[in-house]
Every structure is written in C-alpha cells, then in structure tokens.
C-alpha cells in the first residue's frame, strides 16, 4: 500500500513538474510565438544551479567536482535556479530574438541547447560532466525525517503548491496588457509594431518569463530525483514538453495541463516502468521517442488546435455587466489559429 502511494505520488510530482514546463513553454510559444527548441536546457540550468546552491562545497579527493557549493537553504537555492534560467533565456534571446525569421530562431535555440549540453558534459569542473550531480539535499527532509514514500507525498503537495502559484501567475499574465501584447506579436509582428509595441522587448519578456518557469520546474526535478546528468536532458526531453503543449492545445494553460497529464504522465512516465527486453536495453526508450514524435505529428495533422483549443477573443468582452451569457453570438474578432 505504501509503495502504491509512493508510486502515485511520484507520478503526481512528474505531472506537476511537466505541467510547469508546459506552462513555461506556453508563455514562450503559445503566448508570444517563440519557437524554443531547447526548453529542457532551461530546466537543466535551473536544476544544476539549485543543485550546486544547496550542495555543500565539493570535497577534494572524491573525484567529484562542481562550482559553488553554497549549502544554501532551499528558498534561496530555488531563487538561484530560477534566476539562472532567466539569465540564460535572456542570453539566448539576445541572439535569437533579433528580427530573424522563425526558422533561424529555431536553429539558434536548438544549437545553443546542444552547445550547452556539450559544454556541461565535457567540462567536469562545472557540474561534474557526464557523471552529473548526485546527492542533492531535499527540502524539509532533514527536518521531518519521513519514510521515502511519505516524503514523496509531502513533496507532491509542495510541488502542487508551486505549480498552482505559477498557474495563477501565468493566467494573470495571459489576461494582462503584456499578455495581450505577446499574443499580438504572435499573430503579426508587423501589425504589433505598427501599433507602437516594442516587439523585441515583449518577446524577450516572454522568453525570460518562460525560462524562469521552466527553471523552477528544473529545481523541483533535481530536488525530487536528487541527481541530474546530461543524459537526463537530451533533445528528446525537449520534445516531450512540446508534445504536451501541442496535444493539450497551445495558447491556453488548460491545454498545457491536459497535455502534460496525457503525454508526460500517462505516456512517458508510465512506460518507464515497463520491463526492458533482454539484450535490447535501449529499445523501450526508442519506441517511446518514436511514439511521442508520431503523436505530435498526428495531432498537428488531425487536430492542430489540440484537445483544448484556445478560446478566441471576442469583441465587447468587458466585465461591465453580469449579462455574460447573452454574449455568446458576438462577432469573433481575432482568429487564434492560422
């Protein structure tokens, strides 16, 4: 029984984490139309920085090297991780968000991700190379002294609280003037510019905010697993987040939630526990990657708006009176999908 609860709690944590990733990507792609093909790099930087923030200094003689090692309390480590991810988002944005065509942008993000992957992997002095960080202290664990299964449950609640906070923030952002400006740049950069919007700044805000969200998800990841190595954040992991967003429906956070449940939990995590076939240890992950790729292509082919389509903005949709229900037939002003 305890094992079952622990297992469900693990899936719950993964759901919350992937949900945070999907909301972060939704801010970048769904709100502002930035093709960020290196989502998982922001997760990794957030995770690593929080990891080296909360770990003690690297011990000489153990063959494990990493920078910093500050032994910070968890809230500070969380902030360190989130800020680092945001800074990385800003740096990539500096190159990628100049007025480039969308395919250049995608190439730059993808290339930047693979460069960082190589740098982190080949330099053992930064985050211990391909070995990765291990034994990252978990928040509250030293204080509460719980059994692993109960701790997973506590952590799930902790992750859910953070997820809810970010969800509320993302929804506020969606409705805010900045969020509207983001969607305007997504629909048509030139029109938004003609209306006097600084599209570069708006897109940069989306890039950085999204990166911070994903970074926070990364911090939760390393706290939960207590370890992270480059093998855990390859390109295919980026695609899981994309799959979650596209299957769920981009542009709205409800879609992101459904998508991360369907793809990240049911599809991705549940199959992780399938027994591997003798002699072919990599076959299961290969099949999973093929299926996730196929799922995205089929979704884009047959239901490009996703399970939960973005609601189209309507004219006169102001909360002036309580007669919301009578406004069903009003003119649709902007088409969301193109």
């Amino acid at each position, binding site marked *: 029984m305890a094992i079952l609860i622990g297992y469900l709690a693990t899936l719950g944590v993964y759901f919350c984490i992937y949900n945070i990733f999907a909301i972060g990507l939704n801010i970048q792609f769904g709100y502002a139309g930035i093709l960020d093909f290196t989502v998982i790099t922001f997760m990794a930087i957030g995770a690593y920085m929080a990891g080296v923030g909360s770990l003690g200094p690297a011990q000489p003689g153990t063959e494990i090297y990493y920078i910093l090692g500050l032994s910070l309390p968890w809230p500070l480590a969380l902030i360190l991780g989130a800020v680092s991810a945001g800074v990385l988002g800003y740096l990539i944005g500096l190159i990628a968000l100049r007025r480039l065509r969308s*395919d250049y942008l*995608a190439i730059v993000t993808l*290339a930047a991700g*693979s460069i960082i992957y190589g740098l982190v992997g080949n330099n053992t002095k930064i985050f211990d190379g391909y070995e990765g960080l291990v034994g990252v202290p978990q928040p509250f664990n030293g204080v509460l002294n719980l059994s692993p299964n109960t701790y997973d449950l506590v952590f799930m609640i902790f992750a859910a609280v953070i997820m809810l906070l970010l969800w509320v923030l993302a929804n506020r952002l969606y409705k805010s003037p900045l969020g509207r400006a983001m969607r305007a740049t997504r629909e048509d950069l030139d029109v938004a510019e003609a209306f006097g919007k600084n599209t570069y700044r708006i897109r940069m805000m989306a890039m950085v905010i999204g990166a911070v969200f994903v970074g926070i998800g990364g911090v939760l990841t390393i706290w939960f697993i207590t370890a992270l190595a480059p093998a855990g954040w390859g390109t295919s992991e980026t*695609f899981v987040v994309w799959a979650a967003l596209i299957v769920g429906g981009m542009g709205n956070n409800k879609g992101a939630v459904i998508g991360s449940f369907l793809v990240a939990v049911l599809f991705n995590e549940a199959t992780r526990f399938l027994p591997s076939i003798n002699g072919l240890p990599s076959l299961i992950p290969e*099949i999973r990657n093929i299926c996730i*790729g196929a799922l995205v292509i089929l979704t884009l082919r047959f239901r490009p708006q996703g399970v939960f389509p973005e609601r189209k903005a309507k004219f006169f949709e102001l909360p002036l009176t309580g007669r919301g229900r009578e406004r069903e037939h009003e003119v649709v002003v902007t088409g969301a999908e193109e």
Partner: protein
Amino acid sequence: MHLFLLTLGFGIVTAAVLSLASVGLSLQFGVTNYVNFAYGAYLAVGMYMTYTCMTAFHLPFLIGAVIGILTAGIVAVIVDILVLERFVKRGTSGFFLLIVTFGLQLILLNLAQAIWGVGFDRYPIAQGKPLTIGPFSVTVAQLEVVGVAIIALVAVHLLLTKSRLGKAMRAMSDNKMLAQASGIDINATTLWTWFFTGCLAGLGGIALALNTVEFQVFTGNSFLFVIFAAVILGGIGKIYGAMLGALIIGLVVGLSSLVISSAYNVDVAFAVLVIVLLIRPQGIFAIAGKA
C-alpha cells in the same frame, strides 16, 4: 608554419564533407522553403546502409556506398510523401512545419538506432598509412572524400544549369507560384528535389563516416549545426553560397583546432553562426529582403 599547413589539410577535408551535406540541405530549403531538422537522420541512413551492405552482404565499398546513397534519397522521398507533403498541401504555416520536422528527427533517429544499435561502428576497409603530399598528410580515404566532393558539386552545378529539372528547381526556388503558372510540374520537381537532397545527405554521411572513421547513428545529427552554420553563412537556400559557406566553416573549424581542443568543433561553428546572424543575418550571398 608546417603545423598550420597540416591543419589546413584537415580543414579542407572537413570542408569537403560539409559541402556535400550543406548543398543538399540548401537545395531542399530553396525549393520547399522550410528547414528540415530531420536532415541528420538522412546522413545516418546513408552511413549505415553502406555499413550493412559491407558487413552483412559482403559487398565492396563502392557498391555499398551507391546503395546507401540511393536508400537515403528514397527515404527522403518517402518521408516527404507520407508526412511533409500533407502538411504543405494544407497550407500549414512554417512554424508548425518546423515542429513536424523536429518530430521527424526524433522518429527517424530513434528508428535508425533501433535498427543499427547504439554503439560505434567502422567500415571494414583498411585505413592505410597517411600519405604525405607536400605539407599535407591525409589518408587515401580522405583524398577520395575531397575528390568525390568536387565531382558531386560539379554534378550539382551541371544539374542546376543544364538540365530541365535543375532549371525547374531554380524557378521554384525563386518563385513557386510563378513556376507553377509557367507550367512547371511542382509536385514532381519537389519529389526530385527531396531525392537529390537525400542522396547528397547520404553521400555526406558516408564522407563523414570515412573522415571520422568511427561513427554512430547520432554522429550525423551532431554534425547538423555545423551544416546549418555553413548554410546560413552562405545565405539559406543559396546553393553556391552553401558551397562557399562550407569551405569557410570547414577551414575555420579545422584551423581552430590549432588553438583549442577539437572537442569544441561544433562550438566554433556555432560561434561563427552567431557572428553571422548578428552582423549579416541574410548570409553572404543572399539578396536583401529575400532571406
């Protein structure tokens, strides 16, 4: 000075490998007008079909290479018919086509890895001693790579300038609607483009495998950013630009190993790419506004 010339020789070999792959990518981009992120998988198909022909069927290298190249071309055509063409016909915007090719990359590479395994392989041919020609020191295989690259590039040039098909491709690259209105069969031209792209990718993959000696399924894909750097440097969709871009990137990457470890080859290419994007995002050869 001697070391410089020696490295220059390796740079030229890299440039030769790179030019094959870049011209393929640029040709396809010019005609279809979207980037194909699954391109690295076509390199892997060429590389590994040759390997399978040599190890499983004991065919000589040349026949194996021809089969490998043709298979890569056919795979490219099949993928286009089964997946990409359906999105293009429906008028899917560039955004989503990029995501589709990104998904294809995941599918094709994992499929290739499921077929050919994770480990490193090498062609069962004798490496031979490095020859010393003047200041350069190269293996026979590397010399062959340079020779084949020159022949292939001349062939592409003749295809584009002399044949009807090549002219149709260039017309489509300039203006698809106008090409269609002038009676060019754009469907057939697109399919032929994918075939030649796949063939060039397969050839590039084999050349890459000969150059690195040991290879695995993801070797081509990690080379992809070097290819992108060359293609963007030359102006995306510009075939002669891609040749020049490949030469520059190949030499820069080769010569950079004088200063820093060759483990950072991809990073050097990326640095060049960033500089190009910041200074002249339309590439060296592109006409302003078209890029």
